């Protein structure tokens, strides 16, 4: 029998909230619903395990930080840096996310139905089987994929037409790829970033992400799969090597 643990977070500080979540996970619970979330930071911070946590409300910053394994489903907008330094697992946000979404994420996936703020996917990095992905249904602000060292940022721009015009895309990128549906204004590519060819192999690479996105949010994957994307990657794995000389 599938029992769902419910936690009422109204007026509850994040530390006791996280303690309750940890205790439930330790007890082997597989499904937790947290209601009335309003501004609590660090939900599922450092949490390890296989569990689905539904967050109803507007959580505070650093949702799922250092997390490895759980799936968080947020019904509301996430604040600053959901998926910060996350190691594994999935975050699904039925809403938008603040600045620095998926900051320094090493593994796992973050799906955002609407928009992300500035510096989405900043310094995401990959390692062996760990391959972080940030998928955004709407649009993103400047410095998307800044300092990126691995993984995939996929920007679907649902409902958007015309070229993507935001400053400093992939500034200092030295690994990984940014996919933007449609054209990207060339003036918005930052130092170290380069438009790379988008071929069938790349379409196949993002197809499962598109399908997973559409599964969560009920969109039709077909037009997104066949759409044109601009693929951006590092001009060099050593973006700053040319800046220095030795004494």
């Amino acid at each position, binding site marked *: 029998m599938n029992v769902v643990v419910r936690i009422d977070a109204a007026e509850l500080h994040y530390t006791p909230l996280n303690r309750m979540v940890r205790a439930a996970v330790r007890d082997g619970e597989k499904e937790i619903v947290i209601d009335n979330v*309003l*501004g609590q*930071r660090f939900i599922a911070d450092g949490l390890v395990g296989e569990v689905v946590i539904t967050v109803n409300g*507007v*959580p*505070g910053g650093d949702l799922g930080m250092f997390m490895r394994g759980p799936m968080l489903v947020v019904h509301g*907008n996430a*604040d*600053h840096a959901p998926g910060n330094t996350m190691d594994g697992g999935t975050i699904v946000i039925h809403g*938008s996310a*603040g*600045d620095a979404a998926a900051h320094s994420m090493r593994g796992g996936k973050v799906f955002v139905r609407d*928009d992300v*703020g*500035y*510096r989405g996917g900043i310094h995401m990095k990959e390692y062996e089987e760990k391959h972080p992905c940030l998928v955004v249904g709407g649009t993103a*602000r*400047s*410095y998307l994929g800044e300092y990126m060292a691995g993984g995939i940022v996929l920007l679907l721009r649902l409902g958007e037409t015309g070229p993507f015009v935001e*400053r400093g895309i992939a500034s200092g990128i030295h690994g990984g790829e940014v996919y933007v549906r449609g054209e990207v204004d060339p*003036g918005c590519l930052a130092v170290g970033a380069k438009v790379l060819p988008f071929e069938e192999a790349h379409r196949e690479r993002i197809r499962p992400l598109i399908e997973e996105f559409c599964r969560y949010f009920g969109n039709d994957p077909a037009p997104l799969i066949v759409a044109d994307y601009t693929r951006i990657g590092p001009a060099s794995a050593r973006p700053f090597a040319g800046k220095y000389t030795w004494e």
Partner: protein
Amino acid sequence: MCGIISVVDRAGNLMDGSKIKLALSLMDERGSGEGAGYAAYGIYPEHADCYALHVFFDNIIEARAAVEALLRAWGTIVHDEEIPTCDQPNLKKVHTPWRYFFKPDAALMSGSSSSEEEIVTSLVMKVNTTVPGALIYSSGKNVGVFKAAGWPEEVADFYRIQDYRGYIWLAHNRYPTNTRGWWGGAHPFNLLDWSVIHNGEITSYGTNRRYIESFGYRCTMLTDTEVVAYLVDLLARRHGLDEELTVRALAPPFWDEIDAMPEKEQNLNRAIRLAYGSAMMNGPFAIVVATHKGIVGFTDRIKLRPMVAAEKGDRLYISSEEAAIRRMEPDLDRVWMPRAGEPVIGRVY
């Protein structure tokens, strides 16, 4: 350094301070319990034509006498009283907050188009730099600042801000580093009609302060936010720039953006950067500036501090966190993240 929230009712309907207290308290994490404050417009309808001067007195003998002598020399004290407070377990009345409803005598400062304001400005500067134990921290018409060293809820209860009703509220939760427990260092900062709340640190403060002091302002609050109030006063009141252009001068476009503009716009923006280069604010900030006409929120050019805006009917909200806005109004019509350097303007109709 801090958390901010502001609301304007564009139809001018009054709101009491109970909800903004809850909203600010939700962001206690952003502060350290050593400074919080509220400002509200529309709270003194019975003295709407007077400048409401809020003063912290270290003692109400010499300091008060000195302030009152200055006020009487420059105009009329229509009414004055101690601002009612209610000691909290961790917040005692270490300064006595006092308010004066003051009418300057414009004839004493002839040759200026805004002589009343000039008198009040110079009185504020004079008291704050020369009268020991007195600090004027609020000086506009029908507006008042209520601030102290404590947690947001303590400061709210200390002043019983639920008893005030305004159509614009600003609130700020402070995380101080340099000046612990100094009431004057808490936000909002106010001068005349301008009130400012600020999250961040202005790395150009040394440049901005020297610039603004060359126009006769004196920075006395030992913090970078004060300079914002004076810069806005200079640009918007004295130089007549509108809200949008004032914000443009404070957080201008990058040169590469200007270079890509059509010629006329290019010339305008180049001129703004050339003329107001020393007024440009650098470093991380999210700021809300208010006047009796409304509020303007904006962030630094590269969005180093968070800012969320939301609307519900006539009300426009600006805050560091959406959750705080939802503490005031759970059911919002629209929530958005404004762009860096772009003003969010809430004008009273």
